[in-house]
């Protein structure tokens, strides 16, 4: 890792230095020829074998068939490096942390080195005017060609003063930067759904990217953070095919978000068998039973945690004995409590869940019915009496 970071540092500082040293008139010149990904891999000293291994792994990650490996290799061999601008707005940088911890060393190396991360507040070496110059350069030189990665939501409240960088609001920056972007990747729940800062009452009016930018293809990669391998996979897919991966109806890549955590969970047999952890640290928890009754949101959460797992395939929350909190779902912080199956009733106070409200309504209905039954016997007494007499009369008149 240390080695990688030194490398990134060198790469970045060189890039920024190159850019800032150029006279201003250079911007209209022909694009400097970018090396292809394979050329870069070779230059970094990886063997052909390493390269093929990497390509095969990425093919599997992005959910392609084995036969597509050749296509991925060809793309990486012939495609010039693609400039990437990585913006940070209202967020905690956990997405970046997750990304640089992609399990495979080559993944981090290839993506950080080979995608030219021209501007990333966290990862770039340059700062201040140098950094801003690098950004401006990329925007102009690669207009319509770069990928914009956005980490974090954009606050619209109070004219956006809650998040300002270099004297500009994040909204201004987003509009400027998205103008020439080929596609936008919304990293994490902040950029995809607004995440925790947009929880009620959302004081800063934190807004996800797709509600602000309407005219660009947007790939949502929700999760708090998203899985590093998933993030790498999304980028490689774009690099390989030059178009965004297939998205579901909410705009997430189908390859990673088409299955619920529940459907890929190794504890699923306990769910189907009806064996549940009743409380943390009970006997059932020791046996590794299903965490459904302690509030697991796996059945409502679409993500690849159960398959790809975290930290190099080591584990994921449920494997560590904690229920899924549904961090990649929209509004997960407002939709019920973390350790209960969500049935909280919005607007009825934090204590009332749907079943409590329902039971109260049922008792009230019962009381109303009892009241109505009594009122009927009083208010319609004459009618009931008449009906009864009429019936009795007919009964008398009949032979036994």
């Amino acid at each position: 890792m240390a080695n990688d970071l030194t490398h990134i540092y060198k790469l970045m500082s060189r890039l920024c230095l190159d850019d800032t040293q150029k006279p201003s008139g250079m911007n209209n010149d022909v694009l400097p020829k970018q090396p292809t990904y394979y050329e870069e891999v070779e230059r970094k000293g990886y063997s052909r074998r390493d390269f093929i291994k990497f390509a095969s792994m990425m093919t599997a990650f992005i959910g392609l068939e084995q036969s597509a490996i050749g296509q991925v290799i060809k793309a990486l061999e012939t495609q010039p490096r693609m400039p990437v601008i990585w913006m940070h707005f209202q967020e905690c940088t956990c997405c970046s942390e997750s990304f640089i911890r992609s399990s495979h060393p080559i993944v981090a190396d290839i993506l950080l080195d080979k995608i030219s991360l021209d501007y990333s507040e966290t990862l770039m070496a340059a700062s201040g005017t140098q950094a801003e110059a690098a950004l401006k350069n990329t925007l102009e030189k690669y207009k319509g060609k770069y990928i914009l990665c956005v980490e974090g939501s954009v606050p619209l409240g109070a004219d956006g003063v809650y998040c300002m960088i270099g004297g500009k609001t994040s909204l201004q920056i987003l509009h400027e930067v998205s103008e020439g972007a080929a596609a936008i990747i919304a990293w994490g729940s902040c950029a995809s759904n607004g995440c925790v800062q947009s929880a009620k009452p959302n004081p800063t009016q934190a807004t996800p990217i797709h509600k602000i930018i309407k005219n660009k293809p947007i790939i949502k990669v929700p999760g708090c953070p998203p899985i590093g391998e998933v993030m790498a996979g999304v980028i490689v897919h774009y690099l390989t095919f030059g178009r965004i991966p297939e998205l579901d109806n909410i705009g997430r890549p189908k390859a990673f978000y088409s299955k619920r955590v529940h459907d890929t969970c190794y504890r699923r047999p306990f769910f189907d068998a009806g064996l549940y952890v009743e409380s943390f640290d009970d006997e059932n928890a020791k046996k590794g039973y299903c965490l459904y009754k302690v509030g697991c949101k796996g059945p409502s959460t679409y993500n690849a945690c159960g398959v790809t797992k975290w930290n190099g395939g080591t584990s994921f929350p449920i494997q560590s004995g904690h229920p899924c909190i549904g961090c990649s779902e929209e509004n997960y912080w407002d939709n019920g409590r973390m350790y209960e199956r969500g049935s909280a009733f919005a607007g009825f106070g934090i204590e009332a869940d749907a079943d409590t409200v329902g039971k109260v309504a049922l008792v009230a209905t019962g009381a109303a019915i009892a009241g109505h039954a009594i009122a009927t016997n009083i208010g319609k007494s004459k009618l009931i009496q008449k009906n009864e007499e009429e019936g009795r009369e007919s009964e008398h008149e009949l032979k036994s």
Partner: protein
Amino acid sequence: MAKKYLHIHRLRRVYVWELPVRIYHWLNAAVIIALIATGFFISDPLALMSNKEASNQFTMGWFRYIHFIAAYLFFFNFIFRLYWGFVGNKYANWRQFIPISGRFFKEMWTVFKIDILMLKKNGKQQDHLSVGHNAMAGFIYFLTFIMFLVQCLTGFGLYAGTSNWWLPKLFAWVPAVFGGDILTRQIHHWSMWFFILFAVIHVYLVFYHDYVEGRGEISSMGGGWKFIEEDVFEKNKHHTPNPEK
């Protein structure tokens, strides 16, 4: 003796609920009970202790299986009832349910006064309003149909993700509208309480009408017959709360 002035009614038999309507009604009742019971279990399963291996048990699996089968029956039964609202007799017609005329609203108001506030109309404690269900009941059933729709949309919406059949997949857009499965699931759960409250009130009112009117309200959903007074029959020829044309 009061008996001297007793008016003995002559009753006329009317075929109100056709066989398909009765089958629909009881299938619906059975399926809704199954859906509520299994639904409660699915949302909060009992703490069943067992020393059997998980591979030898399928408790939650069975509950979900029954829930899904019942859901399909409910769905197709619902579709069938909508169809019957166009081809069935006048008491099953869709016009009985949707308040589109002034007379419909007027009758609802009358039902409210007589049956809920216990007020008298023209000095009488009861008024013969309708042969099928009255306008108020019709309107409540209309709301019920909307809740049927809500449950079908949210239920099949949640089911779509795990199904390979095109029919449930048609509902895949529903969770997206609510921003995911979490809220969709909660709406599905909340709406269930409507059915419980509806069932309680519905059963009570059937007993109420049978008791007060004596026209065979309870048995009508068995044989399909209701009995109306001869004079009312004469007066109400071609007269329903929301007549066709």
